């Protein structure tokens, strides 16, 4: 078996960069595709060949199956790596690749389809003996049936897009009052994101943790797991901080969950990299939630603690090589954390922020990894996910890993858009986080007020600005402060002392 000679990367941003680098190290030529707004993006700079997609609208560019497959054929790419998001879990795309004679780097179209339908996936897992969460996964999708079934399950409950992932088309419902509206909205979002408005309902667990297991399986039935990732720190049902090992998973629980994950993968004849997501409740019972049939955003923390390069294995497996890693030879070492750096405003409901990146400075040091898809001068547009980069660190233990991450976040400068960097730091500094007392409600429980609180300009920033402006003497448009009327919005601000110095 030999590796592909040329691979097309059907994605953008940090994951496209990650995949291109892995290919280049292995001597595989890479082809990047890009929409008009991504013309100068890092993944385009890095690739060996590049082909434009035109119109930045996702459906015209990174979701355009026929265009992408045609490009792969034109440039002679033997395989396509889909990254995550976009077409990564689209069974039609995998199928179209097969039809075009281009290898899709991932599991078979059939497995993607099965796991993409969350209802069918749960049924399959139940049959295979993997525990699942109580819920409604029925085919009757009229709103009144869903409302009735929802009431049966009780509150809080989760409305979730059957075809979804990454928080899209997902709603948490705390009472009957908002049930109907939430179901309708989730259906609409699911329809627009995935072209399918099927939703399912499930029990929202007490003190739930989101813990997932990384899987690698070759095309000859060899399947291993690479231990867990604790992904409980979420906002809007999307992960923002992930770590491994989980502070609550004992050796024994790890063994049992790992076996269940491997069983789940084998039950569907899984191949390539994948992730089995579990919900774990306060009593450490675990339930199968879904299987992500692709590389996961948070894969780097597994790489840092196991020493395995998951992307390289994806390429090897897809080119028909056997998995030479053995379960018994794998072990976790140290502790790794990932923080997702988003262009978003945590003080304003985590709304995405757009703008031009004026300045970027990235922390470097031992065991600091920055998987980034941005560069200075780049525009952050509303077309795509606002993920800028993933900052990943590892250290000898959890406490040191947290310290390192706090240091790294404090040295991560992104100017031009609002980011969640300072919010991430606050989460890591939180006493309950440090104790490992985390659930998927962590942000809601401890940061509800913070997210809406306005915060002033700290004195250090004021001093720095004034010094800078005096050094550069660029601020001439300064006028004497007038005692304004009492209804002025400026009333609670500092005023200078006349004759101060």
């Amino acid at each position, binding site marked *: 078996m030999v590796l592909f000679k040329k691979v097309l990367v059907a994605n953008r941003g940090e994951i496209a960069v990650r995949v291109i680098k892995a290919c280049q190290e292995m001597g595989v030529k890479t082809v990047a595709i890009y929409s008009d707004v991504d013309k100068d993006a890092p993944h385009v700079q890095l690739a060996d060949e590049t082909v434009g997609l035109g119109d930045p609208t*996702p459906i015209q560019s990174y979701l355009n199956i026929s265009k992408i497959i045609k490009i792969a054929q034109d440039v002679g790419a033997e395989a396509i790596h889909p990254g995550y998001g976009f077409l990564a879990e689209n069974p039609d795309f995998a199928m179209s690749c097969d039809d075009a004679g281009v290898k899709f780097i991932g599991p078979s179209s059939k497995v993607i389809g099965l796991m993409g339908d969350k209802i069918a996936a749960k049924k399959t897992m139940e049959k295979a003996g993997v525990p699942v969460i109580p819920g409604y996964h029925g085919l009757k999708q009229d709103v009144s049936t869903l409302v009735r079934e929802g009431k049966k399950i009780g509150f809080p409950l989760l409305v979730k897009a059957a075809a979804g992932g990454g928080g*899209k088309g997902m709603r948490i419902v705390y009472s009957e009052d908002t049930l109907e*509206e939430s179901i309708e909205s989730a259906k*609409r*979002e699911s329809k*627009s994101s995935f072209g399918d408005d099927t939703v399912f309902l499930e029990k929202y667990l007490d003190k739930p943790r989101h813990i997932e297991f990384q899987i690698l399986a070759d095309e000859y039935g060899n399947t291993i797991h690479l231990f867990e990732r604790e992904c409980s720190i979420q906002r809007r049902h999307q992960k923002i901080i992930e770590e491994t090992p989980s502070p609550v998973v004992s050796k024994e629980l790890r063994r049992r969950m790992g076996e269940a994950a491997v069983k789940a993968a084998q039950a569907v004849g899984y191949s390539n990299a994948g992730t089995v997501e579990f919900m774990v409740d306060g009593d450490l019972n675990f339930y199968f939630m879904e299987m992500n049939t692709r590389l996961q955003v948070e894969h780097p923390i597994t790489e840092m603690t196991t020493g395995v390069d998951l992307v390289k294995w994806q390429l090897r497996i897809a080119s028909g090589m056997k998995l030479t890693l053995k379960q018994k030879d794998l072990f976790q070492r140290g502790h790794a954390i990932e923080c997702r750096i988003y262009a978003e405003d945590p003080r*304003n*409901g985590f*709304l*995405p922020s*757009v703008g*031009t990146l*004026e*300045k970027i*400075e990235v922390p470097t040091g031992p065991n600091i990894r920055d998987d980034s898809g941005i560069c200075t001068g780049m525009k952050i547009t*509303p*077309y*795509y*996910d606002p993920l800028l980069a993933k900052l990943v660190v590892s250290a000898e233990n959890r406490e040191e890993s947290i310290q390192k991450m706090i240091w790294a976040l404090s*040295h991560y*400068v*992104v*100017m031009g858009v609002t*980011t969640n*960097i*300072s919010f991430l730091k606050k989460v890591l500094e939180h006493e309950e986080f440090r104790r490992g007392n985390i659930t998927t409600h962590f942000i809601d429980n401890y940061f509800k007020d913070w997210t809406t609180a*306005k*915060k*002033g*300009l*700290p*004195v*250090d*920033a*004021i*001093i*720095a*600005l*004034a*010094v*800078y*402006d*005096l*050094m550069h003497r660029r*601020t001439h448009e*300064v*006028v*004497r*402060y*007038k005692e*304004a009327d009492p209804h002025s*919005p*400026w009333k609670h*601000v*500092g*005023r*200078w*002392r006349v004759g*101060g*110095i």
Partner: protein
Amino acid sequence: MFINYEHENHVYNVSIEHKDSYYFITYDNTEYKVEAEETKPGQLKIKIGDKIVKAVIAESGKEKFVFVDGDVFKVKPVELTGMKRVKKKDEEEGLSSPISGRVVSVKVKKGDFVKKGDVLMVIEAMKMEYLIRAPYDGKVKKINFKEKDQIEIGQTTVELEKE
């Protein structure tokens, strides 16, 4: 030198002077005597008493970004005399689009009576949906966008007449 900085609708009045090797900054009735150096373009090292503060400053048009202790703040120098209020009324704020995106659905018609919390419009951006809800009970006076329209951050979606 006197400078006024605007940040999140607040104005900060500062005075600064350079004397010998020190900078004297007066803000909020307190005077700070600091030493400072621009170590790289836009990179400051400031000694305030025993504390060393490192700041990074970038400019984009009239705006400045300042990075201090892991946080970035956006400020503008402002003139106070004759300045217009930049902040909208709170009531209007709830009706402006929180994001640049596309209108996916308009839930009301002109003349409709709505209750506080009712969904008026749904906007989609970055593959997520944002709901515009009525900030108070009222009557729909004007609808500024229709389905599939592009909408920019801060634009008013619907005008409501308060009940």
